[in-house]
């Protein structure tokens, strides 16, 4: 009974919305809004063929490469800048400025510097995604519990071991918050870089459909992007649960106390 109720909560509203959509498109012959059935049909037709290899997978590859590189650069740079006080004071205003530049404007800039290549698209993603991770890591490293920090000094834990067992774990909640922002930003930048300058990829395909007024195909592309976003959010939640298990446990204990 309880699982049935939960299932109702899970599927009730989505089913209701689809029903409304179906009922609304049943009579009218609106050019812009396809019926659910035709959308599903087009979706299977367009995306479950060779497009997976020519458009979807390359896009996902660029996205993954960009986001992962941004995370690595952000965490390494953040730990470095966060642990050295004068370096932080030196770089903070400049970094704040770079973070404030809306990342999409980097697309034309990097297009100019690097030409329209795969590398340029990955660099666009990196240069947009690195800031949330970097700045959050700096904040996290700076906020390491001073008592723990002193204890590790007293025990003679230095260098790599200190970073591995003290700095990274205590900064990880903030790092994950940054990674979360980066992932959604990365998806946006992937689409924009392909819409703006590309001859393949998801963003390009969707714009092409729109320009040729293939409306159901365009909608199916929007659905693909949506699914990609939802998939990334699932991967992130799974990773966060594993990496921050200790943190959530600690929070629970603190809240209960």
């Amino acid at each position, binding site marked *: 009974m309880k699982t049935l109720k939960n299932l109702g909560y899970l599927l009730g509203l989505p089913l209701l919305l689809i029903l409304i959509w179906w009922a609304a498109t049943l009579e009218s012959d609106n050019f812009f809004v396809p019926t659910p059935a035709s959308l599903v049909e087009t979706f299977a037709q367009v995306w479950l063929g060779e497009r997976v290899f020519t458009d979807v997978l390359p896009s996902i590859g660029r996205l993954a490469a960009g986001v992962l590189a941004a995370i690595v650069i952000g965490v390494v740079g953040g730990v470095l800048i966060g642990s050295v006080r004068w370096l932080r004071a030196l770089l903070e205003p400049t970094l704040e400025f770079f973070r404030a530049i809306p990342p999409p404007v980097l697309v034309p800039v990097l297009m100019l510097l690097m030409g329209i290549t795969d590398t340029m698209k990955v660099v666009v993603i990196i240069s947009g995604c690195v800031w949330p991770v970097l700045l959050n890591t700096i904040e996290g490293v700076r906020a390491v519990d001073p008592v723990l920090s002193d204890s590790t000094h007293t025990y003679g834990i230095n260098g790599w071991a200190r970073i591995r067992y003290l700095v990274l774990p205590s900064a990880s909640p903030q790092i994950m918050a940054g990674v979360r922002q980066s992932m959604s930003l990365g998806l946006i930048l992937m*689409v924009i870089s392909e819409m703006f300058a590309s001859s393949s990829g998801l963003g390009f395909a969707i714009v092409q459909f*729109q320009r040729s007024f293939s409306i159901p195909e365009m909608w199916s592309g929007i659905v693909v992007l949506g699914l990609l976003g939802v998939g990334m959010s699932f991967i992130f939640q799974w990773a966060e649960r594993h990496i921050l298990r200790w943190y959530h446990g600690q929070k629970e204990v603190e809240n209960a106390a």
Partner: protein
Amino acid sequence: MSSKTLTSGAAAPNVERQHRQARKAPTKQLLGLAGILGFLLTWELIPRLGIIDPAYLPPASEVIAALLVDFGLTAFWVAVYETMKAWFLGLLMAVAAAVVLGFIIGSSNFLRKATNSTIEFLRPIPSVALIPLAVLMFGVKIESSLLLIVYACFWQVLIQVLYGVADVDMVANNTARTYGLGRMARIRYVVFPTALPYLMTGVRLAGSVALVLAITAELVIGSPGLGREIALAQSGGAISGMYALVLATGLIGVLINLMMRFIEKKTLAWHSSVRSEVLV
């Protein structure tokens, strides 16, 4: 965390800390200034030494000069006005919708459970996926920008409001009920103050997201504003003009961040998270 260590400490060390910080503050600002100057110097030298062709990366002095020229042009300020108009209207609509819906959904257990799966599904959909739709529906008008901005910011704020409403202290709520406060009065005096810090965080985040999407819409779709000017400058080969506009968007971003932090501080001046910051 820092608030805990601060409030447990006696008053004397606080005073001492303030003195130490007052002495250290100028050094910190000087270092920050040195960082900016160092960055500009590196930027100046890279094209001058020929590491990157100046045709693609003009030296900093040239770009800053172009930016100063822009400051004197009406067309530049019109573009800034268009961008900021889309930013403000989009943010306003998103926040209004998210606050109303957030309070309605958040205060009912049934609605919260029933909408959870839909919200979690719709939220991660990147708003740029709506670009083709915006082009078809509105063309190169401000409505295109607004569609993207509202969609992206709405979820950002809604989630925060939902967290905030869920965070209401049951004891406070029950006390208010015992004293005979009605539903509206409880929302006004108990739920709203609890949710306000969350709401302000959401609005601050949404503020920078809105700028990103305003610029994106202008860049990709071509609705009026700074983004379109950047695309035009790039395709027209006005390279230092393009870099100047990129700098301008960065400056607008910094201003928005500062403004949002200021508003947050003002509206939450009574809240302990802000009050303890004053001590530091």
